[in-house]
């Protein structure tokens, strides 16, 4: 059970550390920082493995478990950072209970500010695009991300009509 316990407890320790940091300095931790934070946290898993005198294979397994849990957390964090439009729709329909909701009533939930402009700001901040006045241009980082996404779409055989 050493691998399971060490992997889970190191993930919990790093998660608590992140929550504590977040509570002390709210909103200062972006995704790239979080990835780095969790990667550094693998030293906690390695340390626990060392304390439990694990073999190198068991240690690798502990770190694998920890990294998968960390990756899951980083991806879930995106949903915390910016509420998914899909989940927002679901929450609002559920709030109406048996009265139900007319689709046009949901339109008011989203504005261009929250859905598009905020994301453009994020892409500028992360240097995926540049903004010169009102003109937006793709940067090499954005181009490379787009290339990878297009490769995955081609690999999966998704055409544009399915993507929507």
């Amino acid at each position, binding site marked *: 059970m050493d*691998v*399971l316990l060490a*992997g889970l407890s190191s993930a919990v320790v790093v998660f608590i550390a992140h929550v504590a940091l*977040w*509570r002390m300095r*709210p*909103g200062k931790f972006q995704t790239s920082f979080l990835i780095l934070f969790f990667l550094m946290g693998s030293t906690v898993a390695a340390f626990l493995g060392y304390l439990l005198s694990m073999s190198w*294979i*068991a240690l690798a*397994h502990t770190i*694998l*478990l920890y990294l*998968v849990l960390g990756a899951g957390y980083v991806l*879930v964090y*995106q*949903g*915390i950072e910016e*509420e998914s*439009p*899909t*989940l927002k*729709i679901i*929450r609002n*329909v*559920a709030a109406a209970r*048996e*009265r*139900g*909701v*007319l689709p046009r009533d*949901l*339109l008011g939930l*989203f504005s261009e500010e929250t*859905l*598009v402009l*905020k*994301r*453009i*700001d*994020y*892409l500028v901040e992360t240097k995926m*695009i540049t*903004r010169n006045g*009102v*003109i*937006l*241009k*793709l940067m090499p980082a*954005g181009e490379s*991300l*787009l290339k990878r*996404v297009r490769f*995955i*779409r081609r*690999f*999966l*055989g*998704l055409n544009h009509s*399915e993507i*929507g």
Partner: protein
Amino acid sequence: MTNAYSLTLLVLPVLCNLCMVAGHVLALRSGNVQYVQALVIGFLSGLICCLATNCAALLYWGYSSEALGRILANVIIMIVSCGCYAILLGVVVSSIRIRILDTIARFHEGVDVKWVQQECNVNKAMEMRLARLIYSGHLRKEEDRLYVNRRQLLYIASFFMFFRALVGQSTSPVKPRGKST
């Protein structure tokens, strides 16, 4: 626990993840199933492969509490991987950020922000999501009104709300960003 046993248990989750991706890609490329169904097929192939191979290893090399712990770790790895894969796939398929990049990429000399806003039309994005939610059975439409049909996504939404409260952010925790033009 022998080295061979230990190494097998380490390699199995990696192979099962490959099995999940292969199951999903093959189902999707067959053209007979929809996007969500293909994803479910992928998850099932990964999970079944995980359970079968780990149980086979347990039967072959014998039971020990350490082996049981590592098999449980493998099951956790597989379940979390399925979640990660679904989220990443969602990004590839319908992320608004990717749509913005896609739109800008069409213009080498740059593009006006208004055009991007028009292309990433809020109403269109909403309609697309609603159609997908109705198609996947999470929402149902009765006499033009929408109702929650399956509650799984609602639980996920509640989980995020709980998480926001836990970290002390009832609203969006992102730092205020620069004003858009």
